[in-house]
Every structure is written in structure tokens, then in C-alpha cells.
């Protein structure tokens, strides 16, 4: 499973990415997790299963859905509390739930 986190400057998101990777490793899950700015999204779409949007750039949701959903990529905004408290496990669960919904 390939998870992409889209945010703005990427500072706090990169902390979250680290926590998510630790969680994935602890659970022995086969996932790759990357954080990118929105402007680079188009180059990553083909290798992505799930896009999670940082709550502070939630206004990008419509735009991202337009390009991602036709390619079958699942899109969601990261749960605000989980984002704030840097709960890697919760965000990872959110991504997994999105995929199983399909």
C-alpha cells in the first residue's frame, strides 16, 4: 500500500510520517509513506493508493479529488485530532479503512 500525505510546508507532516512508518514497521505492514507538497502531486499519482490531506490545507480537497479519483486513488482529510497529537497509528488506521471500504 502506498500512502501519500499532502500538506503545505511539510514540517509537522514529516514528523507524522515518521510516526506512521514506525507504526507500520511495528505491525509489520507492507506500506510506503511519503509526504509531498500539493504542487508535486501529479508526478506521484500513478504509484499511489491513498492520499491523506493535512487538515490545514483541507481547501485542496476538491482539487485533489478531481485528479486522483479518476485514477482510483482514495482521498481523505486526516483526522484533525490525530494529526495534532501526531498519532501515527490512528492515521495509519484511517488509511487502511479507506482502502477496505472499496
Amino acid at each position, binding site marked *: 500500500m502506498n500512502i501519500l500525505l499532502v500538506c503545505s510546508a511539510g514540517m*509537522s507532516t514529516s514528523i507524522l510520517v515518521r510516526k506512521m512508518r514506525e507504526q507500520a514497521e511495528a505491525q509489520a505492514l507492507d506500506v510506503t509513506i511519503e509526504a509531498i507538497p500539493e504542487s508535486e502531486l501529479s508526478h506521484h499519482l500513478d504509484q499511489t493508493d491513498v492520499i491523506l490531506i493535512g487538515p490545514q490545507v483541507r*481547501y485542496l480537497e476538491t482539487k485533489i479529488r478531481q485528479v486522483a479519483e479518476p485514477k482510483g486513488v482514495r482521498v481523505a482529510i486526516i483526522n484533525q485530532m490525530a494529526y495534532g497529537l501526531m498519532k501515527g497509528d490512528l492515521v495509519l488506521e484511517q488509511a487502511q479503512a479507506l482502502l477496505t471500504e472499496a
Partner: protein
Amino acid sequence: MNKFIEIAGRIGAQRHLVAIRDGFVAIMPLIIVGSLAILINNFPAIGSLDFVGWMNGLFGEGNWQGLGGNIWNGSFAILGLLVAFSIAYSLAKSYDVDPLSAGLISVASYIILVPVTKDWGLSFAWLGAQGLFVAIILSLLTTELFRTLLKTRLTISMPDGVPDGVVRSFQALIPATLILILVGGFQLFMTLAIESSLFEIIFNSIQKPLQGFGDTLPAAIAIAFLNHILWFFGLHGTNIIGAVIEPIYLPLIQQNLEAFQAGTSAYDVPNTVTKPFLDSFVFIGGSGTTLALLFAIFFVIREQKNHPYREVAKLSTPAGLFNINEPVIFGLPIVLNPIMLIPFILVPVTLTIVSYVALSTGLVPKTVAILPWTTPPLISGYLVTGGSWRGIALQVVNLTLATAIYVPFVAAGVRAMKKQTEGKMAS
């Protein structure tokens, strides 16, 4: 309320504004390097440790400062030229047309319009901050034109097997020709018929008045207010208003830097309100002066070590020291939290007023450096004022004031939370 988020969101995602913002973000490394070069060249002595004097003694008066001056010439001094490229590049990229060609066409058009000096030179004045608005308008216009012309199939197609780069540069040939003819013709008209240049007209009619307004207390308060309202709704405030703030405030700090470089003391440089002014004295620990909020939480909740507020504060402190505050904004949360709305806006507005008074009355030197926004408080206060302990003092005063304002609201939040949990237990 949803309407507000929607409108703010639309502004935040508007293609041209995003291109302007990304264009400025792209040149920030150069801008910061240029600014630091000036700061080092003019660093005041700390007690008996006089770096500038020592270097002067070693290499001869002023010789070594040529290095910093050269760096300045290639960075901040050509601000307009740099964004003419970077904004066109970003916009073209968002349309998925060849960004390199769009950037180059924009630079070429920019140079066409720059008034040429008598000995066939380009004036740094127009390559730099004074040409910023022309750069923005021109890069957006030429890129839109480029994109439209590409769509009309007025392009030269190449046989299969020709390398991609060659195909792209030939595709750009006809659109580039038409755009340059248009811009060149316009410049000819300006010089012959009006005997002025687009640069002078735009600078005098748009840029100068906007900058004049930018360096006022109401403008500073308006920015602080707007930024925090946006963050309160969970939107990236600085990001959304960035496209408007940078073009107005970069030239203001540039004027300060140039005066500082020419030997003016940091007290006497022209402009009070700059982006570093807000970053260093108002957004201490991030938007909302949240470092003070963390202090307030540690102060109010001393006994209950595992209180949720305290947990968030503990988690947020390391990042907060580097002005990263998403954890506290989304975790406490501040977003849509009615108790936090008042201090979250009151604190930055108060600090803006206090800092403005302190700087404009000469109590504290004005800002003469652009620092990476992650520079920790106290260090930033020292550097941004050109190395003055008064900059640190103002940050300490501001942090204390902000903490004092946050304390009653944190206490109210703790009470509300207690009542809520007790209510749950009772029912």
C-alpha cells in the same frame, strides 16, 4: 461558517495566487542567503568581540565585505528577475505545459521592458524589488498567453524519434516569437509615444502606494487578524494570504537591508512593519504566539501531570521552539474552540501594537534581516534587529504579555473540561 471556509479555501487554491506564492517560496533560499550576507557584513560588536573590525584588520578595510555584496547582487538585488522566472514556472507547471519555456519567455519579456541605461546597462533598481509588481503581472500574462498559443496548434511538430527536449523547445518557438514581438512592440510604443516605461508607471501607481500602506499599524493589525481568523478555522493562514503579503513586504525589508548595508543603523532604517517583524515579534512559536500558550498551560496545570492539555503542550514544545505549531493548533485544539478564539486573536493583535510602538519610537531597532522562519525565538530577536539585545528583550516582554493573556482562558478551558467530564460521570 462553512461559507467562510469555502471562500477562504477557494482563495487558497486559486491557481494564479498559488503560482505567485510558490514562486516566492522557490526563491526564498536565495533571499535568505542574500539577507544573511548583509547581516554578517554589518554585524555589530558584541562587547570586545568585534567581528567586522577583526575582519577589516585582517583583509583591509571593507575588502572582505565585497563577498557579501556580490552575493547580494545575485540574490536579493535581482528579486524581480528571479520571480519573473519562478512564478511563470509555477503557473506553467500547474497547467502542465513546459515550465522551463514559460519561465524563459517571462524572463525575456521582463528584460525587454526594463528601461536601459545610457551606456546600455540594466539598472539593478528595476531588476530588484522595485520591479516586483511588473514581474508578477508579466509572468502571469506571458504564461497565460503561452498556454493559449500552445493550444492553438501554432506549433512546429517534429517527426518521431526526436528527443523530448528538442521537441519541447521547437514547440515553444512560435508562441515565444509571438509573445516577444508583442512585448517588444509594446515597449517600443511606450518609449516612443509615452516616453515612460511600464516599470515606472506600475511602480508609482500601484506598488508605491501599497507599500506605503503596508508600513502602517492598521495594515499590520489587519494581517495579524486575518491570518489568525483563518487558522482558527483550521486553514493555513500564512499560506492563503502569502500571495498578497510577499509582494508588498519583501520590498519593504529590502529597503531596510539596503539602508543597513549602506551604513545606516538598524534604528534608522525606513520601515517598521516587515514580514520578519511579524515573524519574530508576533508569531513567536508560530501563529497565535502559541509558545506563550504552552507556557500558560504549564503554569495553570501544575498538579495534574497527565491532564490532556498538558499532554498536548508537552508534545508540542519541542516543535514549538522552532515555530512549528500544528500540534497545538489541531491537538488542543485551537481550531473551532470558542474558548481559545479570543486569546488566539487578541494576543497577536496586542503584540503587533506593542511591537510597532517599540520599534517606531526607537526603543528597539527595526528589522534588518530575513531569517528562516524556523529560527528559535530569542535567537531570532537578536539577529533580526541586526544583533541587538533589545530585540531579545522585546521578545521576552511579548512572550510574558502573551502568556498573561492566555492564562485565564486556559483556566477557563480546564474548568469547562472538568465540568464536562463530571457531567458525563453523573449521567
